[in-house]
């Protein structure tokens, strides 16, 4: 597999978008990741990751509904493209393969 130029943080964001499905908009992605990573993230870091991945074609987005809290501004809902999904799956396979070989060696040693 060729190198996909997907950073660690980007990968996490991408996975979160995939996991959240219809709820995947800026604030919710931030909340979900903060909960899982147990650290505070800035809007800037999430947003720039989203924009970069959209540019690279891992994500696409469309305006969604609004809420009172947002002062009338619409959400932008992100969805993974099939390309993005494939990349995620590839990464998972590579990792799984590496882990297997570690475990095999440990078992031998």
């Amino acid at each position: 597999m060729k190198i996909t130029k997907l950073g660690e943080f980007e990968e996490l964001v991408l996975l979160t978008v995939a996991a959240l499905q219809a709820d995947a908009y800026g604030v919710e992605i931030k909340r979900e990741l903060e909960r899982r990573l147990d650290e505070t993230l800035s809007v800037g870091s999430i947003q720039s990751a989203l924009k970069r991945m959209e540019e690279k074609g891992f994500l696409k987005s469309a305006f969604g509904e609004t809420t009172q809290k947002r002062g009338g501004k619409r959400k932008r809902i992100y969805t993974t493209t099939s390309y993005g999904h494939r990349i995620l799956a590839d990464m998972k396979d590579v990792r799984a393969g590496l882990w297997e070989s570690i475990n095999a060696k440990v078992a031998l040693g």
Partner: protein
Amino acid sequence: MGVDKRKGGIGLNSMSVKKSTDRDMTQPEGVAPPRWPLNLLRYFVKREYIEEIEGDMEEIFHDNVERLSPRKASRLYTWEVLKLFRPTLLKNLSGLPTANQYPMFKNYFKTAIRGLMKTPMTSFINVVGLSIALGICVFAYTFARWTISTDQFHKNKDEVFLVTFNSHRDGTMQQYGQTPRPLGVMLKSDFANIKKMCRVEDRNVVMKHEDKVFHERVRFTDPEFLDMFTFPLKWGTPSSLSDINSIVLSERMAIKYFGAENPLGQSILVKFDKDNGKAFKVVGVAATFPKSRTISFDFLVNVENLSTAEPGYDFNDWKALVHATLIQVDDASSAKAIEGAMDKYRKFQNQAVDEDLAISSFKLEPLATLHEASEHIKDDISRSSHDNYLSVIFLSVIAVFLLALACINYINIAIVSAAKRLKEIGVRKTIGASRTMVVVQFLTENIVITFFALIIGVILGITIFIPGFEQLWHFNMGFTFTDAALWIYLPSILLFTAIASGIYPAFYVSRFEVINILKGSVQFGKKNPVTKLFLGIQLVLACIFITSAVMFSQNSTYLASRSWGYNQDAVLYIEVPDLPAFEKISAVMTSNSNVQSLSGSHNHVGVNNSAVVVKVDAVQHAVDQLAVDAQYFTTLGIPLQQGRVFRDRVESDKQSVVVNESFVGTMGWEQPIGQIFKIDTIQYDVIGVVSDFHNYSFNDKVTPMLFTVANREDYHFLSMRVRAGSEKDTYAVLQAQWAKLFPENPFQGGYQEDVWGNYFTEIWIHAMVWKVFGFIAVLLATLGLYGLMTLNVTGRVREFSIRKVLGAGIKNIAAIITREYAVLFAVALLIGAPVSYILAKMLMDFAYAYHVPVTYSVASISVVVLILVLFVTAFTQIRKVVKSNPVNGLKME
């Protein structure tokens, strides 16, 4: 969040159309994100992202408002906006013609450097002046930083609180840092949100390890002390303090007793009093304490040891106080609630003690700000940082003034030498430079110059000013380049200085019309009234600095020779543990022929006194008390004004007092002898009045005080007057005798003239610091004056040449050169002298309780100095003109 989603009803499109008009109505509870960060966000973020990001930010903001305070939410919002500055999100700002500007700026830099090289004299004046001033700024910053960082290294500084109480005493409400003994334990068990608690009590002990015997102060505390305060241990574990036989040492003390080696497991003997001691095992040594702190320790032992140190010590006695009780709460915000609920303890305390000592309320003081609050808390364990904050203000004012002096030099020289730049500006304007561009060019040049000055300034700061100051005061401010705030401070001061000094010349020079410049009909620079005004301001400032410097130096000499109110020379004193020891040592010393008078006392002037409350005509006064014997007045040379002093070994004097003049003054007695008043319930007669004398240093006003007869059993000091000239010898004898008689007890005594410790050194340092500032101020003003005069004279070379050809003599030329400055000097000094006199007087009254009388002669010294400066500077120019050949002057151009 599912709850407040808008479902149905309003379609997306209609929403986005209504967005702008609806905004204010749709905001819940009327709390809106702060205005300016929002505008910033709208300005910088790419247009297509704005709606989404602004919405996200607003949603988070409202979440935060629900969770935290609106203020905190606003702060977080602003911070988040700043973190949005990322290349992917920013608008493409290349719409602005940045690309075109680059070569222009390059050209500005080039002309700036060339300009600097071409006029070395003015560049030198500008750069030197600015760099000295900036060096002082760096120094002031370092000191401020050091002061602000006081105690901030404690990790729990916001959760740890000192328990204090307010009580109405001596006619005012006062805050006390001590606490009733049982309070700490009760607090801990009554409040679930108090996580930790420690009591602190300090005692003087004698510490002994092998042949090392010293008086020390030991801190008795709960083991939590080391958890609540951040004092990491170099060796050992903090929890071992819970063992009653263990002791923790500071690094300094570890080295004092055990050298550099790890002393863990060693034992050290602590003698609480003469026949009550206990061996402790060293279980910990603290790492070096941070530089800027108000609380630390020499030795720590478990608080339970108090019952060993003082048999019968009652931890549950509401009448007695412990030096400090500190608590650590789970969250800083719960402190208010605890403070309110603590009211129930008031009655325990108030039932136990007299009405006079009743407590009005409890108050919790956070550790983070304790060093500032400490100024107003009596008897607390923290030191106050008040004086340091005053010094920060003082140094900042000085730094700003010096910077102003240097900037004025720059401005003046720039205006006067602007004529040389006229053609350049004319050409630039013709080619198409706008006025703004000329202003920008001049400011750029200024930034270049200030940048050089700043580099030199920083070097001056860290090699001269900071180490010099640290050496004077024997401390270390811990200057470091890794301090992030420094890298905000330096560029800010660079910009500020560059703009402050450059903005006026830039606008001044850029305002002339091209046509006039090139026609040569513009005459300017030489007669600019602003130059005169600025020079005048400089002179006034310099005058103030010189006056202060002279004032403080005079004061230093004056205070050194000021009478203490008694004769402190040739008096020695020594602390004794008890009466038998007193009798042994006094027997030895009485037989010494050098000793002229010897007395025993419970207290000692300048070292130790008691405080008592006296009741005169039902009014209470807190006064100092010294319990002494009959010879004490002779020994110390305290002059008697009226009546008599105590008689030797007469029981009837047990209820007699001798008071000082202030005492008589405060009571308003016409006839003090025979007056009667009460201390507690016992009645005392006034038998004598002594002159006012300084019990404390000149920093404090003399306050009312009284002498009583000391019981022999209470003798704690032995003092003696020795034959003048024999002080050193007698002191050596005293030390030797003591060591022979009491090898187990450390010698603790000294010369009476040393009891004020560093006081005179401090006064001397004040004078020293002022002399430096005064010198710098004069130097800057001189540089400026020199620069102005030189430029003025150089610009008038032809005029002077013609005058010389026509026969003008040295007198005539000198008059012409000096005339305009003489008038200016006269005006400036007429203003400067009275102003500096008034300011110096204010400063003195503020800084010292007693100081040298401020007279006009001080201000006149600075006038003389400045006139001298004028003459010397003028002389260099006159000499140049007189020596020059007029033919060369006329041949120019």
